[in-house]
């Protein structure tokens, strides 16, 4: 037996075995596996491509968002800068408004001062614009009424020891009695040459107790008095210019009257200047 089997084995090993079927089967298997693998790889590749595309899209979106965030941050920074500028401009505008208001107030003050100066200039120029005694008296009365607002007043002139009324408004001249020097407010002002002016013109007074008594001065001597008994009701307080007008009247009214009085005795302007050169030498 063993010899048969040995012989069979020897015969089997001497004869080449036909492995082509195995080989084909192997190759088929191998190829099949290769195809499967390739298909798997292709599938995977396709999936990876798709994923890559998705990721690229997401990346683009994220980039856009970041850019947008940056833009928003820039805008916010710009807004803050503009807010700061706005606050600065508002502060500046407030300052300018205050300055403008101050300038306006100062303009009003200046206009008032100009008006007061105009009052004084006009009063002075009209007082001295005429050499007629009646003219001077008319201007004096007009000044008191129109510029000061005197309603009832009298103008007294010292003659000897008495003050005699030479002009009036709001009362008949003939109704006014003479006042002895030193008697009452008018007499006292006539004697001292010191004006007496109430703090306020209201309530009004009388010619015996005037709201303002202004001496008419020639150098240091009182030669007359203006007594203002009442002013118009629409004048509750003295204006700043009133006291200046009183000073002007005190120093100029008597001079104007004296000039007009002297001129009244002259036949004309030329002769009124006779002797002038002698006074200058």
């Amino acid at each position, binding site marked *: 037996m063993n010899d048969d089997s040995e012989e069979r084995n020897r015969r089997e090993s001497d004869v080449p075995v036909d492995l082509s079927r195995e080989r084909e089967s192997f190759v088929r298997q191998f190829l099949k596996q290769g195809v499967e693998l390739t298909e798997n790889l292709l599938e995977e590749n396709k999936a990876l491509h798709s994923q890559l595309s998705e990721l690229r899209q997401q990346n683009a979106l994220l980039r856009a968002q970041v850019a947008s965030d940056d833009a928003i941050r820039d805008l916010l920074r710009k807004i803050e800068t503009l807010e700061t500028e706005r606050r600065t401009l508002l502060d500046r505008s407030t300052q300018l408004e205050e300055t403008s208001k101050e300038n306006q107030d100062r303009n009003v003050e200046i206009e008032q001062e*100009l*008006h007061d100066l105009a009052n004084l200039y006009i009063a002075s120029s009209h007082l001295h614009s005429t050499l007629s005694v009646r003219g001077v008296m008319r201007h004096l009365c007009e000044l008191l*009424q129109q510029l000061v607002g005197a309603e009832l007043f009298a103008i007294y002139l010292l003659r000897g020891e008495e003050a005699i009324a030479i002009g009036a408004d709001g009362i008949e001249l003939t109704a006014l009695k003479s006042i002895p020097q030193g008697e009452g407010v008018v007499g006292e002002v006539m004697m001292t040459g010191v004006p007496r002016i109430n703090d306020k013109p209201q309530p009004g007074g009388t010619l015996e107790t005037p709201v303002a008594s202004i001496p008419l001065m020639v150098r240091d001597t009182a030669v007359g008095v203006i007594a203002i008994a009442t002013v*118009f009701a629409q004048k509750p307080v003295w204006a700043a210019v009133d006291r200046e007008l009183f000073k002007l009247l005190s120093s100029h009214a008597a001079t104007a009257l004296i000039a007009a009085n002297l001129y009244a005795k002259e036949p004309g302007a030329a002769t009124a200047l006779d002797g002038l050169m002698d006074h200058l030498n």
Partner: protein
Amino acid sequence: MADYSCLVVEDSPMMRQLLVFALARIKSIAVTEAEDGVDALRKLASASFDLIVTDINMPIMDGLKLVKRIRSDSAHKDVPIIIITTEGSTEDRQRAMALGANAYITKPIQAPQVIAKVRELLSL
């Protein structure tokens, strides 16, 4: 060349001068002066004015009569009129406004007050 013309009617030369000075503070106004109501009417007959400032107590024709005459004249019936007067009572004011005055200012005047009223009436 002034943009506006104003007629000042006042018998007191002192007051007239003061008013002219006050109005001169407004650069665009030219001022014409009249001594009383009759003088004013003569001036109105030959020229037109954008504003009239008038006293009340004047000889020949007083300010209230003047206002009445102006308002009855179609040529001047709309011209603004400011009364400036020593008469300070409410009745005087009401009478003047009823006749057609646009403003009523009492003496003694304060130039800034007059200027402000003129600016208001002329929309300056």
